[in-house]
């Protein structure tokens, strides 16, 4: 399978060349945000407030890491289930977010937003939090400290292994269950 080395923030041309099943080794700066942080970001947009990070080209990692032990930038840091962010994701893509990283299925609305705004949804291995934390070389809380594990963190990542699950061309990588619905 094709493997690309990419640097975040991402550009439209980076995202456009990706197809389901591709592997991306991502380096650069990404941001963590999950349930409560997404709600607050959208509330800030409603109130015309300046967001804590630049949305243009941003990669958002759906993660609530465990606390960092001494000498490490972060604790365990694997992806959380993405569908809970589906309510907010299309709006963030329309404002420049290029990619999210999580696990599990996305809604038709998110898949449509990826096509309309040249976005991509990456899957990372759920539960492999100790392993994935090794790709994170720096982490700092930049907003919503009171949310604890749900605070927004700026992460520096190196060769973070990601799989393209939903691309900007309408494709999806997940297996369709053999079940008559």
């Amino acid at each position, binding site marked *: 399978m094709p493997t690309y080395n990419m640097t975040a923030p991402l550009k439209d041309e980076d995202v456009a060349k990706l197809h389901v099943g591709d592997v991306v080794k991502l380096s650069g700066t990404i941001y963590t945000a999950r*349930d*409560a942080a997404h*709600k607050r970001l959208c509330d800030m947009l409603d109130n015309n407030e300046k967001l804590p990070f630049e949305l243009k080209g941003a990669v958002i990692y759906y*993660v*609530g*890491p*465990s*606390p*960092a*032990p001494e000498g*490490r930038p972060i*604790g*365990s*840091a*694997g992806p*959380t*289930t993405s*569908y809970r962010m589906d309510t907010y994701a299309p709006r963030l893509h329309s404002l420049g977010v290029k990619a999210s990283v999580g*696990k*599990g*299925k996305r809604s038709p609305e998110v898949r449509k937003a990826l096509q309309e705004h040249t976005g991509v949804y990456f*899957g990372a*291995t*759920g*539960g*492999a*939090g*100790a*392993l994935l*934390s*090794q790709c994170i070389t720096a982490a700092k809380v930049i907003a919503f400290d009171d*949310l*604890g*594990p*749900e605070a927004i963190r700026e992460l520096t990542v190196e060769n973070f292994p990601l*799989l393209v699950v939903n691309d900007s061309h309408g494709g999806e*990588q*997940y*297996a369709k*269950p*053999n*079940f008559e*619905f």
Partner: protein
Amino acid sequence: MKVIKAEQIHDAVVDLVLKAARYLPEDVKTAIRVARNTETSDSAKEILGQLLENADLAKESGLPLCQDTGLGVFYVEIGDEVQIEGNITEIINNAMIDGYQKGLLRKSSCHPLTRKNTMDNSPAVIHFTHVAGDKLTIKHMAKGGGSENMSRCTMLTPAQGWEGIKEFVVRRMAEAGPNPCPPTIVGVGIGGTFDLAPSLAKEALFRPLSAENPDPELAAMEKELLDEINQLGIGPMGLGGKTTCLGVKIAMHPCHIASLPLAVNVQCHSSRIKEVTL
């Protein structure tokens, strides 16, 4: 009466919390290893390999296996010849808080509506049973949210029987797809009342993968469900393959003549369970 001191229980619970978060049970590791050897899909082999690597790394580094270190769930069996010095609910809750703090485990408990984090993972979810004898057994599960959210409870009609149970469980796992971090372990609670069935389903998850159900009828039902779930082809992380589920555990209890309560409690591949008997 056997007297058990608060401190002894506290220390034992802290130990359970730390070990459950860091060490993947050996029988789960074995099941993942076996699955990796029988998988034909490259992505399935790759993911199962990552899970084994993750388990080794957590053991060596002291990092938790998964960043979602769960809510602290406890099933406690108190012998009627045991006297506890102190309030057992308070002791377990405080020890759970202490364990999550010491182990640098994520605090995931919050107000259900305001979503304000309690910041210490409290309160623990504790189920008590009184049994005969002079032993105190505490079973701990660190239950993650992603898999828990895929769980369901329903009230079938008696006429739906085993076919209805199978339909519901397999459909649920098909709908859950990649969300609960497959390969999963599936706990099924059959019977009792509306409130008991989910508790049976969760408690069933404490039985090791390697331990066959002692009731041959239930053992056959577990095997049938496991085969059907694995035929879904969802595979590790939903990317396809033979390994959607590592094991099904059923617990059954008599129910009302009008009812057939059924619950499915989904556990991810990272089965954080540990128990102690004092």
